[in-house]
């Protein structure tokens, strides 16, 4: 297996199944597993290194129990998309190999912290220039996904991992999918609730890259506030929070919204227009007008009005002072705790959350996601 081999030469003269086995053995031998840094029901994550260069890597082993019908859809999606998406701001899949009993191992780039840790750690101070840098890197990664016809569908702070050199990397492609053809339905049960856009909460079966932009808009807001901006405790509550903060989705601000399968007016007693710069300015006091415009454009209710990743990257905010902090100068967390935390991020089954939501997710949404997500066409 030579995924790391970027050239275009034909495979060496091979020999059938044996060749595949042999290549697999060779790949496997390239790495040493050092210690376990995370274990969940879906995967075990080890810290390891490349034997020849001592370069650290993360080795994610998908558990056999997670493979009832062969290689799971999550693993297939993750491998499929990471094999195609080569970008500085997307986690690099270095190799794939199988270990005894057909365990699937993904060798991933080693990353030692995530954006959630940085946001939550009250001892770490960061400012506008730092946020600008993280957001720009996230947008670049997302731009590359969308340019490659891939929807990430699970953007949230703990899927935005940070390398030791400060580079931010989109991770966890277990919920990703290619853009659908216009008339083929997709599931609306994706994206962790706090970051889920209104069209998905209304049960839309066709949607676009703008779902990822909305999620990232909420991460942007969270970086500014240092707490989750819209932490709903149920889907209904989530919609209420969106309607109250950003405005009530109606035919006026979002033509066609009332036709969505699960459309309801979340706050009948308190219908609000879509919020403008006044509201944003009051809520996010540190942000300049250009920054507010960008945030607003990422959080538009009507997905068609949201900016694309490219439009976001062209925002004046990135050009005005202060310029984005150089990645290597960004506040860092890392070290022992970071490794465990990232180990935890990687071991999760895509779309599952940690903390308070876990029981509900495992019992309910998790299974629902696993079951419903696979809807291709019917």
């Amino acid at each position, binding site marked *: *297996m*030579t*995924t790391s081999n*970027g*050239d*275009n030469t*034909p*495979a060496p*003269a*091979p*020999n*059938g*199944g*044996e*060749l*595949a*086995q042999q*290549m*697999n053995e060779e790949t496997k031998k390239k790495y040493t597993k050092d210690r376990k840094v995370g274990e969940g029901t879906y995967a075990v994550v080890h810290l390891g290194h490349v034997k020849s260069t001592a370069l650290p890597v993360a080795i994610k082993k998908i558990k056999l129990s997670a493979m009832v*019908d*062969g*290689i799971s*859809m999550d693993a*297939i*999606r993750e*491998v*499929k*998309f990471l*094999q*195609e998406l*080569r970008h500085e701001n997307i986690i690099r899949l270095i190799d*794939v190999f*199988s270990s005894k009993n*057909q365990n*699937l191992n993904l060798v991933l780039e080693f990353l030692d912290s995530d954006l959630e840790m940085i946001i939550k750690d009250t001892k770490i101070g960061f400012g506008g220039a730092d946020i600008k840098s993280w957001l720009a890197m996230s947008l670049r990664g997302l731009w590359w996904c969308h*340019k*490659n016809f891939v929807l990430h569908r699970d953007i949230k702070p703990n899927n935005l991992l940070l390398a030791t050199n400060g580079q931010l990397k989109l991770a966890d492609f277990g919920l990703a*999918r*290619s853009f659908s*053809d216009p008339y083929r339905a997709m599931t609306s049960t994706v994206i962790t609730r706090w970051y889920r856009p209104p069209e998905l909460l209304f049960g839309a079966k066709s949607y676009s890259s703008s779902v990822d932009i909305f999620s990232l808009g909420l991460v942007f807001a969270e970086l500014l506030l240092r707490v989750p901006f819209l932490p709903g405790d149920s889907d209904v509550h989530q919609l209420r929070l969106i309607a109250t903060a950003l405005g009530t989705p109606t035919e006026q601000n979002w033509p066609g919204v009332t036709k969505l399968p699960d459309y309801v007016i979340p706050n009948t007693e308190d219908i609000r227009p879509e919020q403008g710069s006044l509201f944003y300015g009051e809520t996010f006091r540190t942000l300049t007008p250009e920054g507010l415009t960008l945030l607003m454009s990422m959080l538009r209710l009507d997905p068609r009005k949201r900016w694309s990743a490219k439009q976001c990257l062209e925002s004046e905010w990135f050009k005005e002072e202060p310029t984005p902090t150089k990645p290597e100068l960004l506040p860092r967390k890392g070290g022992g705790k970071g490794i465990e935390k990232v180990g935890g991020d990687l071991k999760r089954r895509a779309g599952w959350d940690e903390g308070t939501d876990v029981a509900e997710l495992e019992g309910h949404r998790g299974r629902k996601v696993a079951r419903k*997500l*696979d*809807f*291709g*066409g019917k």
Partner: protein
Amino acid sequence: MDDTIYSTSTQHRLFTFTPKQLSDLRYATNKAAIEKITESIKRRAVAAGIVESEIEEIDCPTAEEELKLVAYYCVKCMQLSDHFQFPSNVKATALTFLHRLYLTTSTLTLHPKKLLLPILYLATKTENHYTPIKNFIATAATAGPKVTKEDLLDPEFTIAMGLRWAFQVWHPFRGLEGIFLELNAIASGRYQPPKPKEHLVLPATEAKVALLELLAGDTDRIGRAHGEARRLLTTTALLTDVYFLYTPPQISFGAFLEADRELATFYLDIKFPETDVPGRKTKMKLLDVLDEIAKNHLSAGLSEDLKNPYQGLLLQLPQNGITTSLSMSVDPTLVKEVTRIDKKLYRVTKRDQDSAGKKKAEEWNGSGSQSGTGSGNGIGRYDEDEERRAKKRRLEREKAEREGDVFGARLPDVKTAGAGSF
């Protein structure tokens, strides 16, 4: 498709070749497998006390024969997919997986027959076309071959490794839809030329007039061309090497050119008008490539007797005795040939399974049916299975030859070629 993006894709990095590279790879795979199995049979025979000079000649399928066999099973895979009524992208991905796998895998090592359903099942997963495994098995049963969950899942890792864990396949279907939509836009005067070349291009109204003149009242022509191109893309294109040799948009357009040359040329003239001098050059180059695809690979006029533009190279061409259209797949001489190769393959792999190579091979040659005793090293079950299947295969074959149908019993509800919905 953006070329810079395509060049980073696994399809381009790992599975795009020149005709010569592709051919070399096939020969190399065949050679390596023959060396290995020959060595293995000899070693076993010597271990069983047979003098090396006494070992009967080991007759392995050639690279040409292997390719014919794989091509035959590709048609079979296509029919299976249609039986499941899978969308075109699932079918096309499964076929592409088969082609890719047998670039570096010999049929001496892995018989394609056992892989058709596992590959189809894997393709439903990689194409996000969720099919519960129970339903899959149930539908498979209505097509004839009885299959267990283990049959489907056991080879999955071997297949994935053979594919080098690259699951993304870029198909030419979307490109074709683009051509279709744009021609319709021109016909209704809604064509918007791409920036920044808009100043060079005919205004929408003039383009419309020119197209309507060409159509001369035959308003359905665009739809027919699109349908025919789609048929080519969902049948012939999947039985040729075009995915290995060309990019998806080239294949889309190559099929459209084959479907309706006049309409395709008109479309190119709109894209590269006389006034666009450097564009004209690009157009000529492009036409050369598209012509190659249409004439050398997709054309219905191709046959074994036609001059082979890739003389000496092992490509999937009718000139090399390869089935590239569904109608050819029932050609009785071809069926006979594939049957002969399959027999040869069976004989040599069977010999390799037996510990006393010579003796068993003689038995096979003599009676055509064995006692079914395992070799005692854990492959007995395989032998029995293989024999049972071989017998079934023989019966199926005889029946097929009688009826001139390579697939034996007709699959119920098989859709006519090209009826896939994408």
